[in-house]
């Protein structure tokens, strides 16, 4: 195509305009390098404010410019950094205005697990030395959260599992879902922003941040520095729940509690309401038992006081206690299906037994207490003819003289 025949006069040669030549090169070059994959190390990485990514790929011997347009990098699972070894897929295109060729890249992947692992270890080491994983910084997870904030995808399995388990364990809970993307380039940003927003909202007791299982790249949003810092800065305690049992993400190290899966997070975040019922029941049963003992002891004290006649009007106090006891019985009955039947029964039988100990009841049945000179007369031999004595009935006392 270039006419360079020996002996041709320089002035007679075909002369291209720069644009013409460049166009020719472009049309020659581009069809030869369509949909190719090239592996190299990222350098000079730049994210333009427009959202386009610019970088070079290099190896020991050469360098290639690359660009990834904004519309294409939305699905990028990680944030490219200088030094990362990547596989880039795209077309070679020639940029006429600069006379340079570049890789118009539409897919960018870290070259192998080893590379992801290296990026992960680097960030982990950095955040560790900054103290983001410090145990002393971790907040206590509340035992009985009333409102739980969830940062996850609204369509994933994670939210369904969490809702299902919490409904079963502790249904009197309110769950507030902040829907976010959990994979792709914008995922980290959305997750971190949701955590910060929940802190502004400030009306949940605890946060669960996570997603269900996936490939290492799928989980990558939870390995971002931005998410790590949002978790660290949160004043609301956070449970991380990312992927499967074996997956550890940076988010797990920073979170106040790591749950191996979203389902496990739901099990950890609320108690089983049956257990709480039992706790309440035990508390009420013990206090009931103690109260009954106290009342019985008081009855016994009063009873012996009455017998010794050192005590003159014990019955008012006694009646007050009986009345209070009755009120509690009514309260207990209102506890419907959850009422503590056995304790109630024992309370009733105890009340009956206590009533039978009541000296007033004995007097009411026609018995009377005879005393003379301040002492109870328990034997006929204690009194002689014309002695005076006092007879205590249930409703008053009379004085008598012994006639024989």
């Amino acid at each position, binding site marked *: 195509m270039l006419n360079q025949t020996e002996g041709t006069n320089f002035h007679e040669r075909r002369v291209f305009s720069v644009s013409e030549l460049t166009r020719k090169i472009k049309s020659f070059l581009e069809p030869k390098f369509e949909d190719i994959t090239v592996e190299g190390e990222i350098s000079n990485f730049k994210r333009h404010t427009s959202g386009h990514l610019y970088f070079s790929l290099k190896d020991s011997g050469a360098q290639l410019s690359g660009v990834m347009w904004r519309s294409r990098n939305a699905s990028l699972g990680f944030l490219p950094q200088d030094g990362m070894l990547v596989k880039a897929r795209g077309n070679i295109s020639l940029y006429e205005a600069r006379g340079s060729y570049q890789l118009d890249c539409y897919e960018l992947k870290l070259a192998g697990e080893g590379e992801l692992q290296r990026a992960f270890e680097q960030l982990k080491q950095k955040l560790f030395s900054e103290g983001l994983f410090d145990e*002393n*910084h*971790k*907040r*206590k997870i*509340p*035992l*009985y*959260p*009333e409102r739980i*904030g969830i940062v996850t995808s*609204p*369509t994933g399995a994670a*939210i*369904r599992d969490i*809702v299902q388990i*919490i*409904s079963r364990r502790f*249904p*009197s*809970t*309110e*769950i*507030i*879902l*902040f*829907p976010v993307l959990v994979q792709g380039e914008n995922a980290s940003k959305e997750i971190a922003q949701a955590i910060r*927003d*929940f802190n*502004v*909202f400030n009306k949940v*007791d605890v946060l669960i941040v996570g997603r269900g299982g996936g490939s290492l790249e799928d989980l990558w949003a939870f390995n971002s520095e931005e998410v790590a810092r949002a978790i660290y800065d949160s*004043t609301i*305690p956070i449970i991380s729940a990312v992927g499967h049992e074996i997956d550890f993400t940076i988010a797990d190290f920073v979170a106040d509690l790591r749950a191996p899966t979203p389902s496990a997070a739901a099990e950890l975040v609320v108690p089983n*309401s049956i257990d*709480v*019922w039992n*706790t*309440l029941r035990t*508390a*009420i049963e*013990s*206090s*009931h038992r*103690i*109260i009954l003992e*106290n*009342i019985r002891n*008081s009855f016994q004290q009063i009873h012996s006081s009455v017998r010794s006649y050192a005590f003159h009007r014990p019955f008012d106090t006694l009646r007050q*206690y009986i009345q*209070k006891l009755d009120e*509690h019985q009514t*309260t*207990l009955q*209102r*506890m419907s299906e*959850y009422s503590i039947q056995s304790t109630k029964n024992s309370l009733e039988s105890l009340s009956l037994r206590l009533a039978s100990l009541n000296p007033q009841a004995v007097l009411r049945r026609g018995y009377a207490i005879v005393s003379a000179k301040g002492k109870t007369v328990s034997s006929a031999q204690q009194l002689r003819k014309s002695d005076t004595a006092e007879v205590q009935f249930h409703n008053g006392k009379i004085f008598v003289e012994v006639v024989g």
Partner: protein
Amino acid sequence: MAKATPKNSFESSLQRLEKIVETLEEGNTTLDDSLTLYEEGVEISQACMEKLSQAELKLKRITKKLDGSFELFDEKLNENE
């Protein structure tokens, strides 16, 4: 120092109940005082039991408006997804 977490009402109710039972068990209170404590305990446990018998979980979706305030909507999860 771990950051302090403010306790919600359910948690503090249960803690108060525990404290009441402890005090009663120690047995150093007068009968009058122990009856007052007992009454408080019954009230607290009734309130807790009422809360526990709420049968249905509430699920909301939160969105942030342009002015930075938040809005809550009732959320239904599609079981077939």
